[in-house]
């Protein structure tokens, strides 16, 4: 038996931590439990982007749009305004597949474009999606959002309707649901990477012309990557809708900044190494959402009452930016780089 690889250990340690985490006395430490669930959802989103950016090497700057689309589909399917009113399981699957379909539709026309142009088009697409989500108010709720999403978890169960959160949507339950889905996505994408398709994606990343010359179809491979990544992002969006019990305002939750923050997390952890991606999200988002609050509170208490320069939350974009710049300069392969069979 071969000894487990470094990234397998890193992934295992992280999952063990995440299983134990809700059992700790978080409230005493001032950590809001909801943020932990959000951390898991963002991890799923990052794994989705990683298929496109890490495995296939396409610079995609609009992943937040797919997150938003997934969120919206789930909202439409589970709100009490529309006649669908499905359970969560169905809504989640429809969201994932629907978003993957959108990814496919976007992907088809832009396949001819190379690196920088693809980046711009995905960025522009993100802006279009935000406009559409905002303007079609009758369907998406627009700025007012679709409120009160309390579907039952499974078919043939009636729970959580009548405008009340079902048990499964409350903290430790929903957290473990997200963790389970994260584990499924994590392992599933691991299998994907070892499959024929996954190796094709890596070949396209390493050298598209050579991959084409070896008889692979780069266009079809890139399209698959865009669709899979979008589908996983849609799944994350669906969970996000359930987490908030509404579809949040598109211009705040699904904008360009979010796409870049997720990108930063992936790059921090290590492009295309799944364990690295998870660590990247946990470190960056954990810092942003949890640690910076605690530091802020103590800073404000200790020294600078109301002095905005001493509030870490005012420096968050700077910190993300410096992480990106520093990583690119000193460790462009991330903290936990993917291990390659042979050196280039």
């Amino acid at each position, binding site marked *: 038996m071969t000894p487990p690889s470094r990234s397998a250990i890193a992934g295992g340690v992280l999952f063990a931590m995440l299983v134990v985490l809700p059992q700790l006395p978080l409230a005493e430490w001032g950590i809001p439990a909801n943020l932990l669930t959000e951390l898991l959802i963002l991890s799923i989103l990052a794994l989705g982007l990683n298929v496109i950016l890490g495995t296939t090497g396409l610079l995609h700057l609009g992943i937040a749009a797919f997150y938003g689309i997934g969120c919206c589909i789930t909202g439409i399917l589970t709100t009490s305004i529309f006649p669908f009113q499905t359970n969560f399981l169905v809504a989640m699957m429809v969201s994932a597949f629907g978003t993957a379909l959108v990814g496919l539709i976007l992907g088809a026309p832009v396949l001819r*474009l190379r690196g920088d*142009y693809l*980046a711009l088009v995905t960025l522009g697409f993100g802006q279009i999606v935000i406009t559409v989500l905002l303007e079609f108010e009758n369907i998406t709720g627009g700025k007012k959002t679709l409120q009160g999403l309390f579907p039952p978890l499974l078919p043939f169960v009636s729970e959580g309707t009548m405008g009340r959160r079902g048990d499964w949507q409350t903290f430790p339950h929903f957290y473990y649901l997200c963790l389970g889905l994260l584990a499924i996505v994590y392992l599933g994408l691991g299998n994907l990477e070892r499959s024929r398709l996954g190796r094709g994606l890596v070949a396209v990343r390493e050298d598209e012309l050579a991959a084409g010359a070896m008889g692979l179809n780069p266009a079809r491979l890139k399209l698959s990557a865009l669709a899979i990544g979008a589908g996983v992002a849609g799944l994350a969006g669906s969970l996000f809708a359930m987490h908030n019990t509404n579809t949040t305002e598109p211009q705040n939750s699904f904008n360009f900044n979010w796409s870049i923050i997720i990108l930063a997390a992936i790059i921090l952890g290590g492009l295309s190494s799944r364990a690295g991606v998870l660590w990247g999200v946990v470190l960056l988002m954990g810092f942003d959402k949890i640690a910076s609050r605690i530091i802020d509170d103590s800073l404000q208490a200790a020294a600078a009452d109301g002095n905005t320069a001493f509030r870490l939350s005012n420096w968050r974009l700077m910190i993300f930016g410096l992480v990106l710049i520093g990583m690119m300069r000193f460790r462009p392969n991330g903290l936990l780089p993917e291990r390659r069979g042979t050196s280039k």
Partner: protein
Amino acid sequence: MQPILADGNGGALFWELLVNGLVMGSLFALIALGYSLVYGIIELVNFAHGDLFMLGAAMTYTLTALAVSWFGTVTPGGMSFAIVLGLLLIVPFFCGGANILIDRAVYRPLRRAPRLVPLVSALGVSFVLVNIGQLWIGTSPLSLENKAQLVSDDSLIQMGEVPLKWKDAVVLITVVPVMVGLTWLVKFTRLGKAMRATAQNLVAAQLMGIGVERVIASTFFVGGYLAGLAAVVYTLKIGRIEYQMGFQNGLYAFTAAVVGGIGNIPGAVLGGLLLGFIYSFGGGYSQGNWVDALIFGVLIVLLIFRPTGLLGSRSREKV
């Protein structure tokens, strides 16, 4: 973005939108040139460029506020003219200098790295600059006109029913000579020749004894200078600044550069004007917030049929 129009009858509305499109287009073109010049020379999409423009606008605001605190109330006339001139002199140098510093500190160590590496660094720089802007001018929009009315609201000339306002005229009066100057710089000076040589083949230019790093630094300076200029006239025309304005305008300008054919100077101007007209007419005739979707829709359609932009040349892919 600000609403463009008062209601008017159809014909006058059309001309008003046309003038507005021309003005916004020349602004987009100025910013687009910064993207295009840098891309032409080191193939880097400088995502931070729009935010440099935003810092230029912040500088414009701060300097104006400073002038007001020195001279008291400023109304259109001799004093405001002097202030505008001063702004046009100082702010572009500030932006140009900042751009050189950014290049020196961030991009230069990455010249030999794979393409994705400097690109991601540029995204990082963009975040840093936005944060600086946020700490500098705060999160809520600031109105320059509350500080000082530097350019009068009156019309310069009246063409039939359509006025050409001073605010629009200032933009055109500044932009046109700068475009001419830039063309002269690139076509007829030694530096311009060195820039063209470096853009064509960096290694060969180096072997011919061109100080490539100096040329790249100059390119960053010129790009930043143009962004600073755009920031001043933009602030004078629109009168409102906020720390997020760099993203939106930078995105439009980058789109303009790509539409025209990135790396191509006349292309950037053409793309800028085209985008200005789409922006103006789209905003004028459509209900709601569809301008963004319209612009990027045009971009996607154009890239499908002409992936190198309107004036870009097709380059064969090398192995």
